């Protein structure tokens, strides 16, 4: 019944479709590893999307656009950092407020930018790799951001598991009191993690407004930030699994449409909810699915 769907082409589309959520999710993964739950991913993504779009259109350079998106996302996350780390506000409520704020901000900034096309992002010139039969079109004919997303995941994996900085970050996330006792700057580590998360969410958003759509439309992220949150959990806070998770979530969404196009009747809703149910199962089954010890808890050094 899947005869008319080409799995290789599907994979190629997937690499592109999953990129925004890969960015947003890897950022949030670092944030959560540091023990902070930022539910404002959607707000940071869409702010990044609009900042990136405006900068790219103004300068004509998609590269500067992505840089602008990262700055925009990080700037918004700074608000979250200030509130939760210095003023010790509740992270869940602050994150939700951040989403509301970000959606409003993006919509306001985006007024007057409707109907313009962003400068196009060329494919990465991978030379002969592009022409490898079968693999070439699937793996090596994408824009640079697709590869950057995967590289960031690799980098985060390396950072978390192979560097002292990563060790400190994990220590802060697992037990902030102990980390503090050892002399680590809990708040500083967390603020940096939050900024990284904001920048990555911004990049993910800009991938939508500069590559996938590429015009500015109000509400462009349409819930992608929430999916990113789910993927972090599904991945049980591991960068490698995160990529698989993003492809799986993206894949189910894509497959549903592919099956329709191929003339197969599908129960759309059941297919769409399956990754979330799978995520819950992952949480239950894997002991490694244990969340960072201090996830969502405020830290105050009480001397």
């Amino acid at each position, binding site marked *: 019944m899947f005869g008319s769907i080409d799995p290789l082409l599907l994979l190629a589309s997937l690499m*592109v*479709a999953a990129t925004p959520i890969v960015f947003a999710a890897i950022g949030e993964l670092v944030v959560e590893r540091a023990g902070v739950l930022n539910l404002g991913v959607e707000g940071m993504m869409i702010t990044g999307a609009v900042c990136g779009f405006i900068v790219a259109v103004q300068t004509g350079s998609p590269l500067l656009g992505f840089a602008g998106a990262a700055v925009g996302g990080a700037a918004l996350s700074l608000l979250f950092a200030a509130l939760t780390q210095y003023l010790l506000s509740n992270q869940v409520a602050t994150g939700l407020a951040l989403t509301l704020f970000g959606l409003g901000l993006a*919509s306001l900034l985006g007024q007057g930018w*409707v109907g313009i096309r962003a400068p196009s992002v060329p494919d990465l010139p991978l030379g002969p790799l592009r022409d490898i039969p079968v693999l070439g079109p699937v793996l090596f004919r994408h824009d640079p951001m697709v590869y950057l997303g995967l590289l960031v995941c690799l980098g985060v994996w390396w950072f978390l598991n192979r560097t002292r900085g990563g060790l400190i970050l994990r220590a802060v996330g697992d037990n902030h009191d102990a980390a503090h006792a050892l002399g680590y700057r809990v708040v500083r580590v967390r603020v940096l993690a939050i900024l990284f998360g904001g920048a990555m969410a911004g990049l993910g958003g800009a991938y939508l407004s500069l590559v*996938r759509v590429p015009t500015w439309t109000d*509400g462009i992220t349409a819930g992608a930030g929430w999916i990113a949150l789910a993927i972090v959990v599904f991945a049980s806070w591991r960068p490698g699994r995160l990529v698989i998770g993003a492809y799986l979530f993206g894949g189910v969404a894509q497959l549903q449409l592919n099956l*329709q196009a191929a003339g197969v*009747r599908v129960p759309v809703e059941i297919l769409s909810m399956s990754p979330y149910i799978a995520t819950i199962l992952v949480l239950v089954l894997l002991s490694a699915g244990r969340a960072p010890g201090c996830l969502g808890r405020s830290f105050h050094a009480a001397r």
Partner: protein
Amino acid sequence: MKRRTLLISGAGTAFAAALGSPLRAQEPIKVGFVYVGPIGDGGWTYQHNEGRLALEEHFGDQVETIYQESVPEGPDAERVLTQMALQGADIIFTTSFGYMEATNNVAAQFPDVKFEHATGYMRNTPNVATYDARFYEGRAVIGTIAGHMTQTNKIGYIGSFPIPEVIQGINSSFLHARKVNPDVEMVVVWAYTWIDPAKEADAAKALLEQGVDVILQHTDSTAPQAAAAEAGNVYTFGQASDMAAFKPTPRIASIIDNWAPYYIERIQALMDGTWESTHTWGGIGDGEVEIGEITDAVPAEVKAEAEQMIADIASGAYHPFTGPINKQDGTPWLAEGEVATDEQLVSMDFYVEGMTGEIPN
């Protein structure tokens, strides 16, 4: 569900039209608009807002417009409508199907205020009118162009919801593509959204992987255009707005919602005291459905054929649903020369003969 469509012209005109007295000339008419999305959606709401701006342009000081964006259907809509009426609006346009009950509820409480509900059919009181556009007329034109342009003989269609308006569009474009190219097949993907860029891009990709090289869409974002541009050698059509940023290819023409003529006509009627509770279903001839610039990527003879069709539809010489047309299962629907009635169109829930696949339910 977000916004709109569906209409039954039916016996609504049974209500005696309430003839308002001409309003005093010096006081501007206050016109309210309720939008389901943000103006920045670049599609459905954007086009209604363009209609509002055209009103201001046309009437100058004689009108004052107020509007509210992103009003969720349901209780919030009823509150916003009431607030508008209280603020002294003389006439209110509610621009989404989901406002149907709210519009009629509030209209019952404000008999002196006129209400105009887009794409609905319920007119419970004489101060409610309904209006919609015959998008299927435009789809006939772009279906013709699509039939000529496809090399693979596979046309893709991104549907929003399986409701009569969308099904009309699919059938209309398919019939006309087939007419000029008997080998054409149409592949439909239902996105279950009016606007969701990422999902629309995915839908376009899914169609492209099936060998489709012309994509029609009934969703409002430009994401399918971008996907087509990236794939190359694929043609698309602008939807709701012109999507001119994607000219000359992949966007080779567009089907534009132009509400300005209707809005101007209705406000004029209100000023003249001739406003009535009517149902208006305007099409190409009324200027409500516009075909945007057909670019040079389309061969001249195809363009000429499309323009001829636009003229014929506008003059009433041609109706896109003219028999013989059979339903998908082969049962006859319209006999030779028979033209579909509006009642038949607004309850359309089947594909025509030659379409593959089923309408989901």
